[in-house]
């Protein structure tokens, strides 16, 4: 019964994964009728593509931008869904809570094109905010094309899209905390802040660790469409990340070998990071991502 799904994944997931061998080949598009044949027929050249990649200063720019953005988002934006979940959990009326949840989950289902459009129409040079500022005699500023604040812009977009969705897993973890703990602490005289610090946050710890591990595995990916959509508006200097670099180098200039090498580099580092983080988490007594079933 699993056959159709297996076939689809074999062709569109495992076959391309194998296709990464082009990173170790001197790709010659004329050596076969289709690109796959050409890859098979191309000559092996070892790590030459990787040497070429590491000698490219644009690659290091893209890597630096990527790490800057992921680190920034990890430090400043990772805690926000936790805070929102705790806030939502404290709303007593279930009708009101349900309404807020309905609203904040919604942007998760918007495409990046739609999210960028909304930001453009609200905060862009001719957006709602600029209009209000202009009407009040203030100087509008255009955050959509400013490379210096780009990191804030993309982080706000990600936040707007996914902060609500991110609360789901924390809300589930919050309801799993034993309510008797709160009652016992309260009768021992712990106020709401102490209860938050000594019961709620420790109760969320396994989920936080789990998500941190997964985040670390994604340290080299910041999302692709979001950047490709805005790269032209703010310029390559600020908006080129590894994924867009792979696209421009690998597909637009048809340098399949080096492009695949960059993609493979990203995938391998991501895999190593997630495995190392998982091991470290295990050492500190956490459960980790991979549970032996």
């Amino acid at each position, binding site marked *: *019964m*699993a*056959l*159709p*799904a*297996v076939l*689809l*994944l074999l062709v*569109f997931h495992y076959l*391309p*994964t194998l*296709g990464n061998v082009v990173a170790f080949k001197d790709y010659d598009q004329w050596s076969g009728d289709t690109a*796959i*044949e050409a890859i098979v027929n191309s000559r092996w050249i070892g790590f030459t593509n990787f040497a070429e990649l590491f000698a490219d200063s644009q690659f290091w720019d893209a890597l630096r931008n990527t790490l800057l953005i992921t680190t920034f988002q990890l430090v400043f934006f990772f805690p926000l869904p936790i805070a929102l979940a705790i*806030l939502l959990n404290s*709303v007593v*009326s279930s009708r009101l809570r349900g309404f*807020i*949840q*309905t*609203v*904040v989950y*919604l*942007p998760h*289902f*918007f*495409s990046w*094109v*739609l999210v960028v459009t909304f930001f*453009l*129409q609200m905060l*862009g*040079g*001719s957006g*709602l905010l600029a*209009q209000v500022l*202009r009407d009040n005699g203030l100087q509008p500023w255009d955050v*959509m*094309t400013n490379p210096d604040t780009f990191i804030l812009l993309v982080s706000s977009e990600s936040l*707007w899209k996914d*902060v609500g969705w991110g609360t*789901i*897993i924390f809300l*589930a973890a919050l309801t799993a905390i034993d309510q008797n703990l*709160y*009652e016992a602490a309260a*009768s021992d005289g712990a106020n709401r802040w102490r209860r938050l610090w000594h019961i709620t946050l420790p109760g969320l710890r396994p989920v936080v660790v789990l998500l941190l591990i997964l985040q670390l595995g994604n340290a080299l990916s910041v999302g692709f*469409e979001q950047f*490709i959509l805005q790269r*032209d*508006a703010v310029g390559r200097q600020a908006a080129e990340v590894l*994924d867009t670099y792979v696209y*421009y180098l690998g*597909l*637009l200039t048809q340098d399949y070998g080096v*492009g695949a090498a960059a*993609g493979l580099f*990203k*995938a391998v580092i991501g895999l190593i990071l997630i495995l190392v983080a998982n091991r470290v988490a295990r050492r500190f007594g956490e459960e980790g991502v991979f*549970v032996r079933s």
Partner: protein
Amino acid sequence: MTAVTPAMRDRRRRAQRPAWEEPPTVPGRLAKGVLLTAVVLAVLIPMWSVIVTSFSSKQAIADAGGMVFLPRDFDISAYVLIFTRGEVSAAIWNSVFVTVVGTTLSLVCTVLAAYGLSRPGSLWHRPLLMFFLITFLIGPGLVPTYVVVTSLGLKDSHWALILPAAVNAFNLMVVRQFFMGIPSELLDSARIDGAGEWMILARIVLPLSKAVVAVVGLFYAVGYWNIYFNAVLYLNDAEDRVVQQVLQAYIIAGQSPAGIGSPPALGFSAPPSLAVKMAVVVVVLIPVVAVYPFIQRHFTKGVITGALKG
């Protein structure tokens, strides 16, 4: 219906709050109210303003100096224009095709595989499970995927958007997890009565799993409706465009100097008016907003987080 007096509401609140919890302080309630209102408005204001502007006349837009926030009049000429103009309606049909065909294919493949994998001890159970789980860890990468899709001759075909995205291992695990919760006695008794696996799936398992299938169906459908970049990558002909591409061409591309990578702007004699642009936004937005409330109530912890730990 009797009116809810503040006193009644207060009593109700107290009933829901455990006895040991201290009553909320005024500044605390105020801060909470302000924060949550801000979060909700941050989502609703952009949508509101876009919808209002799309129904505004040229005059109202000119008076507001751009985006309209307070509705002044009701004018559907922008919608009349985009639905009579070939390129937007063609894009809508393309997106509907991709979404409907894609979601159907995805659901069939996902439900079948999930059912097969939900019975431990079936043939090749563990290797097959690993086969699906590994796709979480290792992504194939952009360049080789492009090579495979084009080599199969899928370029300039909407199947290039559907087939690579047809099976999502996460969704598969969500459905599998749910199927595993169905008591096996139920299935065994059907087997004793002579029902085959197909019959069991269609008559017993699926009717019990409407909620999870609906949620996963929504995930797939929204995924297909939202496809943008793969369309840029694989579709060259203007008449094949999907709605996200039209939205990008109408609004985002206009903002920046056309560079490589951004698709060529659509052949316009004059740039579309703001109302027309906003009408396109609404067209892209509405299907998502319309389907979502029916599914949202199933987003309980069980359906979503159940699969995270397999």
